[in-house]
């Protein structure tokens, strides 16, 4: 069940809000837990038990870890939990890839049936690992109520696409949180904003981007426009989803961490990763980079750590060489910046710094979006191989609506702090903002419905 679907928006969400607010206050966590399990089971009716098993196992291991005074026992339990969690993740996400890679390298074909990837496994595995690691470190006490732990892991707003909420950040909120009209109002605005971003911008760009990456169009200019469109699509899709998750969290009384902070205003790759998918970057920083030594063990080791973290970041996104190279691509630029390029950048005008960062990011998305490495390389080749009919291709493929959405997407990707500050001086700013978001939400509902409108192609029976 995705947020931008009629079943979620008009059935699941109103019913959950109704039960949550009109049920007994003491039962709210249980209502949310059951709703979350149902939400997950709707898409993964059998693999929901895998998630439940993962919750139970980690609950027990963390409980023992917390009770044990011995460091050795704690370490063994932590290793068991991490091996198990990563084992599940490896089996469901990376096993097919490993078999295929093994075949490519050795020529030996291991017979293995294709394993379906459970929705959101990367997200909930990282959440659950943050919990056991924090218990091991003594940063938090273990959760005594298994249902509360279950709620933390399975909470539907952030279950399938983040943000990766760390237990330490919501521990107190699970036990006790305040519900208020102000918070509900904030959540409503945030949800509407995210919904509009996803439906009105990201979804409108998808078919044009898909057409280009399917390799049907022989035009460098159109390919450049397509990769810019994808740059916007992935941002509005992912950040829109995060907005909806954060908004839903607020509606149910939670405060989740922010996941995006206008990443495309970045003036370096380092800055980009502080603004893009913040919950993932901080997870890797706290649970991989710093334990590896971070930047404390010398320059060479820092670079190696950076490369490890970014290769893992890439691999986390998907079991494919593309993603590994995508991570590596960023690692290379981060190392270059650390090697001294950042000092050169500082001397450049702001606009050039921005152009540098955005070009790297845009080119990086080719690796991310292409389905194979050869597909990515072909795309790169296409970007620098103009055809004889560039203008003609522009006329054919670049429609007015696409241009409108791209321009709107670019404009809205910037914070416009000055304009906002000026507008805030007006008395009716808040009202105008809320009504605009509501209007966009209604428009997005129309677009969601219209896009799913399937006129009957003649009659079939």
């Amino acid at each position, binding site marked *: 069940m995705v947020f931008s679907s009629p*079943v979620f928006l008009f059935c699941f969400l109103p019913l959950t809000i109704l039960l949550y607010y009109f049920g007994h206050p003491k039962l709210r966590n249980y209502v949310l837990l059951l709703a979350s399990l149902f939400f997950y089971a709707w898409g993964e009716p059998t693999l929901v038990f895998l998630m439940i098993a993962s919750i139970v196992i980690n609950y027990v291991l963390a409980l023992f870890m917390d009770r044990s005074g011995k460091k050795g026992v704690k370490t063994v339990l932590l290793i068991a939990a991490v091996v198990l969690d990563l084992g599940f993740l490896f089996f469901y996400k990376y096993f097919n890839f490993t078999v295929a890679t093994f075949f490519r390298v050795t020529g030996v074909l291991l017979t293995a049936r294709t394993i379906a990837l459970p929705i959101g496994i990367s997200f909930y595995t990282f959440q659950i690992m943050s919990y056991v690691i924090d218990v091991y470190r003594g940063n938090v006490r273990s959760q005594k109520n298994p249902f509360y732990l279950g709620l933390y892991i399975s909470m539907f707003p952030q279950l399938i696409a983040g943000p990766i909420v760390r237990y330490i950040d919501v521990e107190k909120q699970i036990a006790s949180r305040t519900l208020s009209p102000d918070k509900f109002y904030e959540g409503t605005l945030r949800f509407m904003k995210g919904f509009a971003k996803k439906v009105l911008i990201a979804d409108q760009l998808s078919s044009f981007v898909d057409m280009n990456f399917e390799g049907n169009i022989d035009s460098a200019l159109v390919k450049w426009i397509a990769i810019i469109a994808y740059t916007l699509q992935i941002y509005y899709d992912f950040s829109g989803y995060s907005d909806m998750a954060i908004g839903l969290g607020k509606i149910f009384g939670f405060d989740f961490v922010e996941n995006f902070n206008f990443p495309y205003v970045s003036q370096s790759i380092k800055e980009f990763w502080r603004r893009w998918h913040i919950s993932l970057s901080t997870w890797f920083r706290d649970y991989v980079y710093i334990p590896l030594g971070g930047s404390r063990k010398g320059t060479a080791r820092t670079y190696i750590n950076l490369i490890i973290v970014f290769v893992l970041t890439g691999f986390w996104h998907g079991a494919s060489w593309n993603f590994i190279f995508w991570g590596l691509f960023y690692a290379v630029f981060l190392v270059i910046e650390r090697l001294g390029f950042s000092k050169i950048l500082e001397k450049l005008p702001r606009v050039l710094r921005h152009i540098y960062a955005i070009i790297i990011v845009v080119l990086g998305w080719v690796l991310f979006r292409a389905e194979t490495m050869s597909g990515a390389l072909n795309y790169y080749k296409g970007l620098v191989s103009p055809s004889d009919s560039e203008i003609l291709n522009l006329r*054919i493929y670049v*429609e007015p609506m696409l241009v409108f959405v791209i321009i709107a997407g670019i404009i809205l990707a910037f914070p416009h702090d000055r304009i906002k500050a000026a507008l805030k001086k007006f008395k009716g700013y808040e009202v105008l903002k809320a009504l605009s978001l509501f209007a966009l939400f209604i428009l997005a509902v129309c677009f969601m419905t219209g896009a799913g409108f399937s*006129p009957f192609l003649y009659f079939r029976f």
Partner: protein
Amino acid sequence: MKGSVFKYTVIALFLTVLALPTVLGALSSITGKSLDTGLKGYFDRHDKPEFSGGSFRDSSFQTEYGDWFGSNYKPRGIYIKTYNTLRFNLFGKAHNIIGKDDYIFEFDYVSSELSLEPKNDFSLPENREKMEDYVYKLQRIQEELEKKDKKLLFYISTSKADLYHDYIPENYLIRKPEGSVRGVDYLMECLSGTDVNWFWTVPMAEDLPCESFYATGIHWSRPFEQKVDLEILKRIRELTGKNMKTWELTDLQTSNEPYFRDTDVFDMMNLWNDPFTDTFYQYDTVNVEPEDSEDVKILMQGGSFAIGFREDLWTQYPGYSLDYINYCEYYVDKDRNVTRLGDDWNNLPLGDLVENADILVIEVNEAVISRYSNGYVDALYEYLCGSGEG
């Protein structure tokens, strides 16, 4: 205080949007009123699925429920009309290609007409070879059927992109590869060198009381379809020599609403400003049943254009012996029992159907020529001629 009232108002508006389908659905059930704006046209119908543990486990319940809910909630019509109106009026955009004078085209039809995709360019040797093999098999199938005292009738249904070529948008017309050959042209060239019983439906588009294709439709207009149906019947009678029941076209009816099977009525007909006010036509019919009439058992394969004949035959003579195969998707018998084929001819009792039929009718639309009847001709050839030949 003022601020709080406003916040409550926004929350209430938001919750109203979420709850509207449930509230309107309930009110509609109570009052019996639609409480939504109607949409013109015929749509996929989705029945509300029955819940069972098994259907939930294999996710079919979720899929079917999503389909059912997604096509039934209120005020879906208002949302869809708003969406269509905005896209069309602001950006000239619809689900299909919008051509000159707002004539719509489906991409497949334009692609085959202009040979936009390599599979549709029959100047290419590999495509010519496939076509020649296809027509050779049709010829052999007809020969083998003749031995069994059965007949074959093959016809090519017209594409809107062919008859309304000039209405295709310029940015598609300019993409036509130089020296390309349309599938329909090469197919007819190949068929002309054989004895296969075939015809093309374009001549039936002459002398129609209306357009052969409406601006808002992908498929032909109802009178065009009715004339093609009679041509099929005439040829079946001639080929089989049987005095089968038929019907005649009489008075012409008109309506502002499309007749069933008249038009696909895509999104452009569902706009708030409603700029499309076509008049739709349909001939009345009267059955002609000779006293010594004989039934002909028909096995028909084709796509949506062939369905017109099937429906007309079953409307005029319910239960008439016709077995219909839609591409390789499903098979419908005369009692309207449906068997899904799932793109696999092994799921069809082809031998039984062929042996039971007096005539095999194959319909191919210009837009799908490069699908070569979805392997139906190969399957027939295999059955009738065996794999050892050719």
